[in-house]
């Protein structure tokens, strides 16, 4: 090993202890001296490089991590909450058909409301007077000038977000349910419809849609024509 190579190796790593280097060092006290100088220099370099470390750095680092962890858990919880909400909504949508049979047209809705107020169909003694009915009808701009029979029930109800008037008229054949809906109800019209107990018909008047529902053995035509004549709209 020549002098230059020895210096190159010693200066790149004064602490190196391979065989070649050890041999060179034993043979030459001057080289040993150089090594001692360089090892001393390294100690001084190390002392100089060892700048003071902020005393609270380790604690800060651990705190930073625990805050990050905390944030992550909160984020996970947020997602968990979100996921639970989505599942709940999905569940409700899925089971909605079983809880509330979903009706996509006017006839279906009308039948559902009839069943919902089925008690009123049995309650023969209930009655409302024409004035009360007209008060409710005035919301649609409608009015019944006269009515030959009695009226059992009159109340607003909600037809999938649309306010409509639910009426039950007494006729010789039995009660007939009539729904008055504003034109913008948004449900597909079904002219005639029926199920195992009831049948119904819808009429499109100029200002409102009217749906009639009665028992299967009852006829709807007389009621329909009478309403057509008596129900007047002012607006």
């Amino acid at each position, binding site marked *: 090993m020549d002098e230059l190579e020895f*210096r*190159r*190796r010693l*200066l*790149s*790593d*004064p602490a190196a202890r391979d065989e070649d280097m050890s041999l060179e060092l034993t043979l030459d006290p001057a080289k040993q001296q150089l090594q001692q100088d*360089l090892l001393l*220099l*390294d100690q*001084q*370099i*190390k*002392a*100089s*490089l*060892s*700048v*003071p*470390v*902020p005393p609270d*750095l*380790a604690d*800060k*680092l*651990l705190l*930073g*991590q625990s805050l*990050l*962890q905390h944030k992550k858990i909160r984020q996970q919880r947020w997602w968990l909450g979100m996921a639970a909400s989505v599942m709940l909504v999905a569940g409700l949508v899925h089971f909605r058909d079983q809880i509330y049979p979903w009706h996509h047209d006017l006839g279906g809705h009308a039948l559902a409301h009839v069943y919902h107020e089925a008690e009123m169909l049995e309650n023969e003694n209930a009655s409302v007077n024409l004035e009360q009915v007209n008060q409710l009808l005035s919301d649609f701009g409608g009015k019944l000038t006269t009515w030959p029979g009695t009226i059992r029930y009159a109340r607003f109800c909600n037809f999938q977000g649309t306010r409509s008037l639910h009426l039950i008229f007494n006729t010789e054949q039995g009660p007939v349910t009539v729904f008055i809906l504003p034109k913008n109800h948004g449900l597909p019209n079904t002219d005639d419809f029926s199920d195992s107990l009831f049948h119904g018909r819808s009429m499109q008047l100029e200002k409102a849609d009217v749906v009639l529902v009665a028992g299967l053995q009852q006829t709807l035509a007389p009621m329909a024509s009478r309403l057509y004549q008596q129900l007047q709209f002012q607006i």
Partner: protein
Amino acid sequence: MSNKQIRYEALVRAFHADLFRYAYWLCHHRSVAEDLVQETFLRAWKSLDSLQEASAAKGWLITILRRENARRFERKQFDYQDVEQDWLEDEQSFGPEQTYENQQLHRYITKLPEEYREPLVLQVLFGMTGDEIAQSLELNLNTVNTRLFRARHQLRELILQSPATGASQHG
């Protein structure tokens, strides 16, 4: 405390001081160095699972820190540009235990080219071998050895030229 947290705390305790010093010698600024170490350990926490062996931890953390430092230049080039060029001496960095010679040497180390200083820090401060340094800095071993040689050679020259140190050596 989870197993991951125990490992993390051990890493922080074992390496935060040397990493801070290494960061300081990369950026010459204590608060920037502190930020760098914070970023480094947060990244380390996020990918702690990828660290398989404890013996690789040192090199792994250094790699993360170097990457963070490079990112800092992309992000904050304008913030630190003036500091980098004009302000290289930081009196705050001298601890009470540091002698005048050490302070002098500190200045000389500061004057070394970055490419010489960095392997020297890894060798002297972290006790890394030439191969480990080569791996960390993505250089070949010969280049690392040459740079280490030049770093020490330049420091010796500076010390020998210095009147104070020269006098003390002869005295």
